[in-house]
């Protein structure tokens, strides 16, 4: 049996086999092993419940630095982590295309397993459906996750104040650039998605005693869109220093080839944090101590939002300042 068949989604014997042979051994935990209609979970630790969901339709499903399985876990873990939550449990629902090689499914399962282990979360429930060939683009995944925000953590865009600093945990746009490169036959040894769980990074800031005002993960729409949304909600004005934006050489080369801007490309393993100016060094030191935070830098400052100013602007090397908008439509590779 080497491919996914429609019968795998029917709920019958083949479905059961698939679950017991592919999923349970990978995600091994008491709640999942019960295989009942709902996962019955232990009581939550004190704090506020955080709940997040995401759908994953990445194409190609396997790319340098990750795969659909990994990203499906990291996406939801990271949404919880940047809200200040400690992620606990995930659901993992698959919609598979008839004809998907089992080998590929195994790659996704292994990716989800390793990401979950890295993040310290359990996948406690799931679902499998199969759609006819041609209707499914290999596989789609939807995950939902539960975490708890300890009571003392208060993260909110409105807490951002004039003088605060914006830091990022590493180079920007790597995931988006890698995906585009795959789609346009561009290769490179250094080209790699940044896909990975960020909860160690978020916890490190709290452990170091940083008064984090708010955090976000710059996924779709990139850093530019995420910062605009934060500035709109928070009512402040962010000025980004162009020379301080960390971009990897490979990502920059892909962007130049295709006419893209790294500020608008997705990251899947980075954190943006707004912190007090006085604690920037403390925060960066906490991140630099982790491999996934080695490239962390400070690249923006909060100013007052006076009437007529734009929420986010870029200060360029030539001393000018330009507005940075949200992503408009889809950023299309340009020829112009």
């Amino acid at each position, binding site marked *: 049996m080497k491919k996914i068949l429609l019968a795998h989604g029917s709920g019958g014997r083949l479905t059961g086999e698939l679950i017991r042979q592919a999923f349970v051994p990978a995600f091994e935990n008491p709640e999942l092993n019960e295989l009942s209609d709902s996962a019955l979970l232990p009581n939550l630790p004190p704090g506020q419940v955080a709940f997040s969901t995401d759908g994953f339709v990445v194409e190609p499903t396997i790319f340098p630095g990750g795969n659909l399985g990994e990203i499906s876990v990291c996406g939801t873990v990271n949404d919880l982590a940047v809200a200040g939550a400690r992620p606990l449990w995930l659901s993992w629902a698959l919609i598979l295309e008839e004809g998907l090689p089992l080998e590929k499914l195994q790659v996704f399962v292994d990716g989800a397993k390793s990401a979950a282990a890295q993040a310290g979360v359990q996948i406690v429930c799931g679902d499998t459906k199969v759609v006819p060939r041609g209707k499914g683009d290999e596989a789609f995944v939807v995950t939902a996750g539960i975490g708890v925000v300890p009571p003392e953590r208060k993260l909110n865009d409105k807490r951002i104040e004039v003088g605060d600093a914006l830091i990022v945990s590493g180079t920007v746009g790597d995931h988006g650039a890698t995906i585009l490169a795959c789609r346009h036959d561009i290769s490179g040894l250094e080209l790699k998605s940044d896909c990975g769980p960020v909860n160690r990074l978020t916890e490190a800031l709290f452990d170091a005693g940083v008064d984090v005002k708010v955090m976000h993960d710059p996924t779709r729409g990139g850093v530019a869109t995420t910062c605009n949304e934060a500035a709109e909600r928070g009512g402040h004005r962010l000025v980004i220093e162009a020379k301080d934006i960390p971009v990897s050489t490979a990502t920059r080369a892909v962007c130049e080839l295709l006419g893209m801007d790294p500020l608008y490309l997705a990251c899947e393993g980075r954190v943006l944090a707004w912190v007090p100016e006085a604690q920037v060094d403390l925060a960066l030191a906490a991140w630099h101590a982790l491999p996934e935070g080695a490239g962390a830098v400070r690249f923006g400052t909060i100013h007052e939002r006076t009437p007529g*100013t734009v929420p986010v602007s870029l200060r360029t090397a030539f*001393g000018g300042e330009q507005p940075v908008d949200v992503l*408009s*439509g889809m950023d299309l590779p340009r*020829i*112009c």
Partner: protein
Amino acid sequence: MSEDLDLAALRRSLEDPAAGGAMLKRIEQLASELDRPITLMEVCGTHTHSIAAAGLRRLMPSNVRLVSGPGCPVCVTPIGWVDRAMALAAREDVIVTTFGDMMRVPASHGTLEESRASGADVRICYSTRDALQIARDNPSKKVVFLAVGFETTAPTIAAALEEAEREGLPNFLVLAGHKTIPEALEALMDNEDVKLDGLLCPGHVSVIIGSEAYQPVAQAGLPCSVVGFAPNDVLVGVAELLAQLVANKPAVKNLYSRVVRPEGNPAARALLDKFFVQTDSDWRGLGSIPRSGLELRSEYAHRDASLLEVELPVAREPMGCRCGEVLQGTIDPPECPLFGNGCDPEHAVGACMVSSEGTCAAWHRHERLALSAPQS
């Protein structure tokens, strides 16, 4: 050549504010010697974009104005042409292949992006070679490439046609929409409403047509400098134009000699000539310009997508749109009543807003600060 070309060092110095600052000082000196309003024009979407992104306009002396001309090929493509592209996409037997820039251009009824959402087979290609491959992979379909662009891009379509001919690939066709710069420059110079003092010539178009192609413009009295796209490339070019004005010696100065030669690229032009012939062409907002377009030669009728049967709507220009004047540099985008007021990159009414290198889009993205409160 003993050492390897240090590209990284070159790139850094082309963006180095210290060198840029030096050139700005020179520009200030020359501008004050001239002591009158000066208008310099660029005619390349990539220049529009890079000038806006580096904020160079605002750094110019108060009497020097940088304007954008009709340099964005997407912006000057007539609505009727895009209507035809969409009608082709609606045919069951056609796969439309295109550069990304065309996807969101508003035609009479929607965009190619919307066509795709409604089921048309429209695919974005980085290169015409990708389209050739799509043609090989889909022998039962006609693969039509939307050939938009100036002389930098047109040879790549000619090369694809050459490959298709050599290989005997019958289902690769082209909807010809290329336009040529020198003829557009002539028309601009003939237009009394357009008052220019100097021309920043498009660096990559010049790679193909050569720096000598601008001699007629210089001989008509307009200083020309051929420049690349980095901030310091542009600043060097501006300084050169001002110096020519001070000396009252208009000429063509090639400042992009690392890739532009006086004679350009004859091989590319020969291939263009093999497949295309010059024709009078409609430029959106500017009207018809003689000999400014390229159409497929009749012996390649079998590759001409404009000969395929389609139903065309009556072409509809949006009301109130002043793209035409923006394209000639006679008004700046904020002077159009629709700018930021119904027309923005998300809801583009005219083509100048849709392409990220259209003058209006570049202003909207990068220049709004100049229109608002003082900077910190």
